[in-house]
């Protein structure tokens, strides 16, 4: 060695050293085992979850992304079947329903435990419900409890004694809930996170349980009763949950951990999937659908989802205050073409508001695309061939596909009816403000059902409905929605909804356009994840099985 060194000048030696160092790095750069491959081996699921959760406190948040995480950490009285989401026993192992279907008695299982080892009791549920309804918390989803006796009054501050509300602890293992009306979808309602329990001693320890900004939801503090426990939370980076050792049904849980990634850009997410970092994506860029359909159809998932894309019409503004004009505009939209040429994700053209098959309900009143009839109606309204009609303004929030759809509709109205339309786009919050203050003529909108029942789509349009935002009010419609709530017999109740939606489709304060589909990628080794209309996937049934 000494000999060789003598022959090298210092400069040449340094040069060789540099080259050697560079080449020694290269083998380290070869194909590595991907995160997904490691995950398959260690039973760790990697999921894209859209955006960073606002929080993971069920009494504060409203979003879907938050729900996807919380459903791993918490469990309500009932849980859901992974295939069709019908309610199955959760913390309650069984329940009795009174003959008038207004009183539910839940019997809690004695092995249900919080992640700190405390037993889950009926009082935990009662206190959590009280918290969600306490006015000072300002919980947006408090209304999910309003089917319960006096819950709304307590939330409004009209009743101050919580004992007057329809929740009663009979003993540690028995909880009774009394409803105002027989509510056929009550058990489905219980799947919503506003019905999840929280561990109140933990909340008291980290802040005021009845105010926002409680800091109990951090790793190391979070006490839950679900099948997983919170292990890691790095904002905008990752949330990791690990299998809970205290969960009552832990033997069924196959996954050791789940990692949720808040990847906002769909392109970034799709690349992460291709690089082997995700088992399941949250979404898929529309431009990639065709590629996967032809090259890798096995991983492409498309299925109907409880969401409708529609246009609100401001019935207080001429010329759309005339029902005939609204009907004519609705009839002249070629929905098939929008779905096929713009969306391309298997969306279903919508001729009514409630997605078909919502809890066994499919609306019979169907809007017709009929240009001749549309022209007749328009002429009747005083605008033959669109003559004399002032331009209609279509408002949408700034997003590429909203613009494309609005342009297509603008073109359809122009060529088929001779009606001019002007497009107005506004940034999200400005658009919301315009919509709320009825400062628009026609405006794009979407609605996702909170639970699997037509009521979640149809009670929006009552006169007092906070999300009506069309200026439309119809006493008969209001009466039908109240009547549906009071009808115990399920089939009769759906008939009332049929009448209500037929009325809505005749009056047209909204113009349905299409029903959304959920589109994402899923690796074949993911088992126990079923497509369903609410896009809920209970994690305890899931597993990763790589073919041997």
């Amino acid at each position, binding site marked *: 060695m000494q000999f060789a060194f003598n022959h090298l000048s210092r400069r040449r030696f340094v040069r060789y050293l540099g080259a050697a160092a560079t080449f020694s790095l290269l083998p380290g750069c070869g194909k590595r085992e991907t*995160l997904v491959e490691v995950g398959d081996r260690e039973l760790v699921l990697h999921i894209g979850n859209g955006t960073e959760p*606002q929080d993971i406190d069920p009494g504060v*948040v409203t979003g879907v992304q938050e729900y996807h995480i919380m459903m791993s950490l918490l469990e309500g009285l009932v849980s859901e079947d992974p295939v069709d989401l019908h309610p199955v026993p959760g913390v309650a192992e069984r329940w009795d329903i009174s003959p008038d279907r207004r009183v539910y008695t839940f019997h809690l299982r004695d092995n249900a435990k919080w992640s700190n080892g405390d037993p889950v009791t009926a009082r935990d549920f009662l206190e959590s419900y009280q918290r969600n309804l306490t*006015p000072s918390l300002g919980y947006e989803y408090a209304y999910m409890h309003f089917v319960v006796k006096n819950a709304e009054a307590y939330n409004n501050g009209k009743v101050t004694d919580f004992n007057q509300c329809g929740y009663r602890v009979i003993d540690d293992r028995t909880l009774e809930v009394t409803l105002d009306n027989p509510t056929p979808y009550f058990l489905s309602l219980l799947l919503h996170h506003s019905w999840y329990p929280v561990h109140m001693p933990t909340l008291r320890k980290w802040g005021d349980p009845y105010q926002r900004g409680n800091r109990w939801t951090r790793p190391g503090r979070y006490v839950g009763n679900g099948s997983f426990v919170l292990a890691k939370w790095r904002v*905008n980076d990752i949330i990791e949950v690990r299998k809970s050792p205290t969960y009552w049904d832990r033997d069924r849980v196959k996954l050791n951990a789940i990692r949720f990634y808040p*990847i*906002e850009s769909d392109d970034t997410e799709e*690349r992460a999937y291709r690089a082997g970092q995700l088992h399941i994506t949250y979404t898929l860029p529309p431009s990639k659908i065709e590629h996967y359909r032809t090259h890798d159809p096995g991983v492409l998932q498309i299925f109907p989802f409880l969401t409708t894309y529609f246009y609100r019409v401001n019935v207080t503004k001429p010329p759309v205050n005339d029902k005939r004009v609204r009907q004519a505009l609705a009839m002249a939209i070629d929905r098939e073409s929008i779905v096929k040429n713009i969306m391309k994700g298997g969306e279903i053209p919508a001729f009514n508001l409630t997605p078909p098959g919502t809890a066994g309900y499919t609306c019979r009143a169907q809007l017709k695309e009929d240009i001749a009839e549309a022209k007749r109606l328009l002429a009747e309204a005083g605008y033959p061939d669109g003559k004399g009609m002032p331009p209609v303004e279509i408002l949408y929030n700034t997003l590429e596909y909203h613009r494309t759809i609005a342009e297509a509709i603008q073109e359809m109205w122009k060529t088929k009816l001779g009606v001019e339309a002007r497009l107005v786009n506004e940034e999200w919050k400005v658009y919301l*403000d315009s919509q709320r203050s009825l400062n628009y003529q026609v405006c794009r909108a*979407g609605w996702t059902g909170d639970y699997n029942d037509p009521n979640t789509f149809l009670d929006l349009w009552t006169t007092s409905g906070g999300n009506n935002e069309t200026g439309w009010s119809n006493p008969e419609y209001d009466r039908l929605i109240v009547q549906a709530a009071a009808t115990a017999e399920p089939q009769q109740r759906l008939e009332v909804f049929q009448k209500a939606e037929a009325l809505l489709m005749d009056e047209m304060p909204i113009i349905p356009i299409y029903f959304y589909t959920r589109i994402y990628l899923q690796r074949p080794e993911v088992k126990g994840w079923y497509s369903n209309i609410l896009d809920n996937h209970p994690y305890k049934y899931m597993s990763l099985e790589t073919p041997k």
Partner: protein
Amino acid sequence: MLRFIFKRILESIPVLFIVATVTFFLLHRMPGGPFDTERSMTPEVKKQIEEYYGLDKPVTQQYFNYMKRLILHGDLGVSQKYFGWTVNELLAGSLPVSIELGLEGLLVALFFGLIAGVIASLRKNTAGDYVPMSVATLGICIPSFVTGPVLILVFAIEFGWFNASGWNFPRDRVLPAMTLGLYYMAYISRLSRGGMLEILSQDFIRTARAKGASEQRIVWKHSLRGGLLSVVSFLGPAVSGIVTGSLVVETIFDIPGAARFFVGAAFNRDGPMLMGTTLVYAVLVVAMNLLADIVQVWMNPRLRFE
């Protein structure tokens, strides 16, 4: 020198104050609020939430409360988008990520940019000049939302050397730093080439050559300091831009940095977060410009007497 620095720091206080005040009042002029969503909330719920965040008070009172907390406690308030977090916590988590990414990008830019620029200036009007300068022009022209995905496609998806996104392993730094650095690298190489050419044509260089100084000595000892002055004055604003994070690079690589908060806060109308990020960025811009001025004075003796 100390007096100069002290004076500049004093000067920056009113700048920051004005930035805070203008941002605050502009923010309150924006239509829509942090709690407006597609689902409208009942007036009761809205009132409770506004009360909790103090949004029910007159704007001037909100302003004084905010400034008081900021000046006395350095408290940037509670995020109105991420409920359980304070702005201080969120920035403490994300700003170091942006700064790290920025510094790594800058390192890439400086290392390759300077080498390319100096070599090009020494090989003026040869292939050794044209090739790096053409690459530099491309680097300036091609936006990072093109270079980023291309680097990912080749090195992450095709070769499998890196992850396509994330910020969890040391190797996750490589592609984002390259993407971010490329643009600055291009600038630096052009600026350093220009600066070096100017110095190399000066009389004192000719004298040095006449006296038989080696080419290495001419570059290292006589030209580099003067030739890179323009790079340094470019670096002031560039560094503050590069370390405060790049929304595009952070989005492409899904990096948990502060730039996403900055832009997101405006869309979400998250007042405290918008104020916090704006102020932190303002401080960084002021500090980096000051630093660049100091380095310039150190490098250019002529400035010391002004």
